[in-house]
Each structure stands twice: as structure tokens, then as C-alpha cells.
């Protein structure tokens, strides 16, 4: 009696693979083919990916809105312009009276097109110092810090027409008719601006810590009487 190698699968393969008849087959070949034919004739529907496009469009729309409505640094007051500031030499020992200041030439400000280059605004007048250089606390500075490019048009700014930054003043300060004390070092910045506004002259003024913190670039409000 021959004993086949237990790992050999030749007998099983040869005997089983030749077997292709299932006894008592309940389903005929034609019926199976009809079922298969129906499945093959159906066109496979592609999954709709509409919501992909809707999500992508909403994201793009969000970014576009954010870019359009986000204001730039220089566009808070006057959109479309780039400003150059003249550093005004300030003398902290005495205030500069408005009468001695030269008025700025009336010029028109042109609005820039979105596609055109931004015009550089340059004030025509320069504030002249009241005292000599020795008395000045701050170092002198030249013209505008930012020199405009050659191609950019220079437009003289009309300070009178521009809306100036008005200081925030309390109504009590306006109503108050008492003479102001000579020493205004302890007064607030708003009061000092009021003093300048009403052409109040003081011969003595003690420099205070707050005055040192004053911004260097200040546009003085022109005197309407002049």
C-alpha cells in the first residue's frame, strides 16, 4: 500500500480541478447569464462631488473677502496715498507761536487709481525754528525721511483741506475762563493743544516728561484769521 507524501497536493489538485459539475444544480446557466448581463448593462454612476466644489469655492470666497476688506497701515485716514513726514525741529523751551509759522500753499490732492502708482505727498512749507540751534533739544533733521522714488509723482498736500486730527477736548475745558497758570508742565496734552488753538502765549514753560513724549510730526492747525 503506497503512502503518498503528506505534503503533496497533486492528487487533490488534479482530482478536484477536473470536477466541474455540481450535482442538483438549481440555477441554470441562462438565468445566471441574464443576471450578469443586467449588471453589465448598468452604467456605473459617478459619485457626485458637488460638495467638494462648493467647499472649495466658499474657501476662496472667504479669502477674497478678507483681502478686500482688510485695510492697510497707510490707508486708515487717506486711502491711496503714501505720506512723507517732515521731522519738525521742536524747541521744548518755548512753544512756537502760530503767527510765525508760514502757511502751506494751497494745493489739491489727487486721488490715485488702483492701477497707477501712488503719489507721494510732500508738504511745501517748512516750519522754521524760533530759537537757535543751541537751544534746541532735539537734533535737526532734514527733509522727508522717506525719499520718494523717481517715478512716483509728487503731490503737494493741502493741509487745510485735509481733515485734521482734532484733539479730544472735554467741554469743561472749553467753558473754563479762568486764567491758566504760568506753569503748564503738569497739564495734559489736550490742554496744551487748546492753548495753541486759542493763541495763548506763555513766556515760561517748564519742560515736562510728557512733552518729551510728544510725537515729532505734528501738523499745526492754521490760523483762520490769517
Amino acid at each position, binding site marked *: 500500500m503506497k503512502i503518498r507524501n503528506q*505534503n503533496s497536493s497533486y492528487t487533490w489538485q488534479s482530482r*478536484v480541478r477536473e470536477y466541474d459539475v455540481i*450535482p442538483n444544480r438549481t440555477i441554470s446557466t441562462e438565468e445566471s*447569464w441574464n443576471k450578469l448581463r443586467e449588471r453589465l448593462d448598468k452604467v456605473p454612476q459617478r459619485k457626485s462631488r458637488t460638495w467638494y466644489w462648493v467647499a472649495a469655492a466658499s474657501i476662496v470666497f472667504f479669502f477674497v473677502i478678507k483681502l478686500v476688506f482688510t485695510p492697510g497701515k497707510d490707508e486708515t485716514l487717506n486711502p491711496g496715498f503714501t505720506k512723507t513726514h517732515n521731522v519738525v525741529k521742536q524747541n521744548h523751551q518755548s512753544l512756537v507761536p502760530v503767527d510765525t509759522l508760514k502757511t502751506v500753499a494751497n494745493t489739491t490732492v489727487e486721488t490715485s487709481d488702483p492701477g497707477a502708482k501712488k503719489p507721494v505727498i510732500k508738504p511745501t512749507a517748512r516750519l522754521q525754528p524760533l530759537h537757535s540751534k543751541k537751544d534746541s533739544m532735539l537734533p535737526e533733521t532734514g527733509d522727508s525721511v522717506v525719499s520718494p522714488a523717481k517715478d512716483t509723482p509728487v503731490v503737494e498736500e493741502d493741509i487745510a483741506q485735509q481733515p485734521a486730527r482734532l484733539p479730544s477736548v472735554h467741554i469743561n475745558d472749553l467753558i473754563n475762563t479762568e486764567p491758566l497758570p504760568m506753569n503748564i508742565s503738569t497739564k495734559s496734552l489736550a490742554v496744551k493743544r487748546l492753548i495753541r488753538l486759542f493763541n495763548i502765549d506763555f513766556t515760561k514753560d517748564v519742560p515736562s516728561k510728557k512733552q518729551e513724549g510728544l510725537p515729532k510730526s505734528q501738523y499745526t492747525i492754521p490760523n483762520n484769521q490769517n
Partner: protein
Amino acid sequence: MELQELISEAKKGCKAAQEVLFSRLSDNFLSLCNRYVKNEADAEERMLDGFYKFFRALPQFRYESDAAVYACITRIMVNECIMQLRKKRVFNIVAEPLERDAILNEDLLDKISEAEIHVLIRKLPVGARTIFNLHAIEGCRHDEIARLLGITAGASRAQLARARALLQQSISFLKKDYENKESK
């Protein structure tokens, strides 16, 4: 009509060639699916799924030989059957200690018909039956079977040994029946 001509015509979209091809191969692969899936209705569904995938991929199919065509379709059918068995989660096979492999009696095996062999295989438990089909008939290695079924190679060997032991037991019962018939 040879198989190569049928396939070339079926690739062009000829429905008659596809029908002839199906009628020629369906019985063989239905019996294959029946060895894996016991229920005849499920076996037919798996066969139809396999042929559906084959006909869908037919435009990209390149004929090399008849054996290659049979091997390709066999692989598709086996995968379909195993996918259904995995969905039913029948492969909860625990690694059993390896039994001593049963020694097959060649003389007795030659006396058994193909239909009886088919019945004996279908009577095996689902795990042992699947692994016996994959290893002994399809020729897969234990590591391939383990990767295909999500089990370990040791569990595959144990289930194969169990299948052989059960088959040997069934064959011994058949041997007694044959001897009784011959004595009469």
C-alpha cells in the same frame, strides 16, 4: 472557438462572445465557489461578482495562455469568496497545537469519485475547509494564507492538519462502505 478568440471578441464588446465565454467557464468556477461557500445561492452570487469584475477589466486584459486566463479568473473568484467569509467573521481561528498530519491512502483516494471528494471537502468546518482549499488545491503558502485571512501562519498549519485528519477520517468511513459493498 478557442479561448483566445473568444476573449479578443469579448474585448471588442461582442455580447455573444461574452455569453459563450461565460457558459464555458461558469460551471467550473461555480464548483470552485461552492467549495469555499457552502450555500449554493451564495456561491452563485460570488461567481457572478467574479465574472462581473472580470468582464469590467477585460479591455485591459492581455491574453498570454489558457492557463493564465484560468489562473486570473480563479484568483478573482477566490478573493470574492474570502471577502464574503471575512465579512461574516468566520475566521475566529485559535492557534491549536499541530496534530500529526494524516497519511493519505492513495489507493482509497483513487476509488473515490470527484463528486464524493467535493462533498467531503464541503463537509469540513469553514476555517479548515478554506485553508485546505487554499493550500492543498490552490497551492498557497502558509504565510500567504495568513496574510489573506488575517491569521497567523501557525494557525494556518494547525487548521490544515485538522482538515487532513478529518478528511482521512471521512475517507476511512467510505473505505468501510466500499469494503462492505464488495463483500456483498
